[in-house]
């Protein structure tokens, strides 16, 4: 019988194609606008490392100005000082720990014709790769001893390895970085967590870096760090003074496998701060934080407030489109009242008629959903064109979003069809048959 209803729906849509087209267009526009903003929000707020997002914690300590908090909401600073992060790393109290900062360097390729070029990089300790589940194409991470002994080793991104070595296994090769030779120990496979959760402070949606080197090399000024630096008092003269200053510019992550480990680590942090207080630092009340990945992303407002607002507005637009669809469906179905009366006379129950007309509403919804996908794709292209690289990778419809769009269209149209269908099915057949 459902096939029969589908055929009747097709005949009805074809018969009043103008009205049907208007409804498909209304639903399509609503779904298109909603899916454009929902997709951006969905990708912005996606869990970038679902397997262990609840075991990875971003560390915050409050070393800030005793007279003024680092953030208006009382949160500690977003980063740690060099001396604190290296001290925590040296204490080695967590299952895994990463100290890191963004860096940049000039890379000089081999060959007379190759010109030096700037590469984006990250200075990080060895656990970075295991902790954040970085996939390797060749080789692997360096180990803790390489960090401690400040070895000049490097992990390359796949794209840089393609550029420098034509994609072959380059482990053991040397690359000249910032004037020094570094030995390649690994090449990571294409990896682009979105959001790039491990360093939100330099942009949650930036590309993953091209080179990774041991963090300890920063202390020797072998490489140039960059990224955000915030100070609440002068850092003093010279690099050594800067490293020992209260300026925050490093990020520190720990991997804690259970609640007990988390509590233990928090106890350790409190003890550390208490010790530092004795040295005249950390003059503000103890305010240590351990935020897991999703908490940290929320804290940093990875999903921009205006993006959320746009999503709410687009969903309201969808509602307006659906209200229009209800009106159009009502007009269409009530114009079928004589036929409904006839079908009742010929033996159709109200349930039969309800199913028939709801099937038609569903077909219109699916057509609207398909059109909505086209509009959503166009909308996302527009978002990409408007925001450029920042939205690259965020403005793409994946299979889940396509499924959601179709489901949204179907459910919306069925909801929109409920009232018109109910009205149509309550017509008095005897009146319709006489007036036809």
């Amino acid at each position, binding site marked *: 019988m459902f096939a029969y209803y589908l055929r009747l729906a097709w*005949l009805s849509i074809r018969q009043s194609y103008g009205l049907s087209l208007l409804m498909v267009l209304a639903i399509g526009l609503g779904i298109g606008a909603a899916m454009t903003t929902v997709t951006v929000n969905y990708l912005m707020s996606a869990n970038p490392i679902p397997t262990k997002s609840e075991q990875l914690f971003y560390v915050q300590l409050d070393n800030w100005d005793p007279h003024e908090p680092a953030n208006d909401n009382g949160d500690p600073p977003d980063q740690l000082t060099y001396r604190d992060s290296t001290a925590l790393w040296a204490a080695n109290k967590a299952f895994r720990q990463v100290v890191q900062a963004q860096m940049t360097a000039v890379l000089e390729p081999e060959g007379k014709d190759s010109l030096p070029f700037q590469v984006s990089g990250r200075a990080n300790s060895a656990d970075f790769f295991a902790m954040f589940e970085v996939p390797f194409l060749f080789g692997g991470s360096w180990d803790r001893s390489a960090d401690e002994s400040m070895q000049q080793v490097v992990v390359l991104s796949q794209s840089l390895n393609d550029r420098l070595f034509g994609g072959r296994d380059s482990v053991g090769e040397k690359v000249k970085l910032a004037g020094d030779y570094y030995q390649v120990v690994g090449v990571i496979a294409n990896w682009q967590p979105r959001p790039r959760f491990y360093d939100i402070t330099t942009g949650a949606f930036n590309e993953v870096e091209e080179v990774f080197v041991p963090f300890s090399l920063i202390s020797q000024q072998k490489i140039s760090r960059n990224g955000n630096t915030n100070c609440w008092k002068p850092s003093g003269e010279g690099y050594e003074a800067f490293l020992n200053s209260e300026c925050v510019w490093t990020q520190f992550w720990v991997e804690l496998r259970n609640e007990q480990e988390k509590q233990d680590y928090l106890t350790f942090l409190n003890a550390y701060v208490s010790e530092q207080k004795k040295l005249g630092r950390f003059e503000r009340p103890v305010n240590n934080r351990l935020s897991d990945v999703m908490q940290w992303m929320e804290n940093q407002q990875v999903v921009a407030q205006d993006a959320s607002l746009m999503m709410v507005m687009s969903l309201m637009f969808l509602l307006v489109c659906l209200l229009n669809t209800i009106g159009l469906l009502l007009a269409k179905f009530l114009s079928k009242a004589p036929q409904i009366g006839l079908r*009742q006379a*010929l*033996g*159709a129950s*109200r349930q039969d008629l309800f199913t028939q007309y709801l099937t038609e509403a569903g077909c219109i919804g699916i057509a609207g959903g398909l059109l909505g996908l086209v509009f959503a794709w166009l909308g996302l292209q527009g978002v990409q064109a408007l925001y450029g690289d920042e939205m690259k990778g965020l403005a793409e419809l994946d299979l889940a979003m396509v499924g959601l769009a179709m489901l949204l269209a179907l459910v919306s149209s069925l909801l929109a069809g409920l009232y018109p269908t109910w009205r149509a099915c309550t017509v008095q057949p005897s009146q319709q048959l006489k007036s*036809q």
Partner: protein
Amino acid sequence: MLLMKQLGKVFHTGEVSTHALREVDLEVQEGDFVSVTGPSGSGKTTFLNIAGLLEVASSGLFLLDGENVNQQSDSQRSKMRNQKIGFIFQSFNLIPELNLFDNVDVPLRYRGFDAKERKRRIEQQLELVGLASRMKHLPSQLSGGQQQRVAIARALATSPRFLLADEPTGNLDSQMAQSVMALLEDINRQGTTIIMVTHDHGLAQRAKRQILIKDGRVSELTATLHEPLHIVSPSATEHSAKVAGV
């Protein structure tokens, strides 16, 4: 087969109540061909709608094949309508976007027949009304008489025992009307009970029984023409005799 006792129908519009049918007592036997006449607004169509289970009586008893239809649910009435009753309308009421085959198919779908059985019945009925060669035509491609024949084929497709015709010749010229009437008579001869509302006294007189509805009251005109009478209500009989005597 059909029994109405003290049946009444009142329509309420705001504070105004209109009695469309009053104290109707009527019995129709298997194989009857009953014509119903009466002035406009007398209650003929209301009577037919109640008989066809399209409306529910406000009072009284209505038994169809022994079942009290006033107490049935919408779906039960739909099922009974589909299984026992066929409708023919003055304006044919064919679905314009469906071809003849699909129009006749409509009641068969609700009956739940399989595709093979539906096809057999549709072809058989369209053959009966002489339109088998046009089953892929749309209603708009047929004359009025042909459209009414399709409506008759549709009404008969489910093999109903009871055919209700509401002015079936009202939109046809006299030649077409005679042809449709002949078809109905033929159908009745084969055992189908027919109740036909008409304004055409000539056609009404060709029915086995003639009923007059006036001011919502039913009386039988055939009292003096045929035996036996099936009128149950003494008041209606009285009224009928009075009418016959005039």
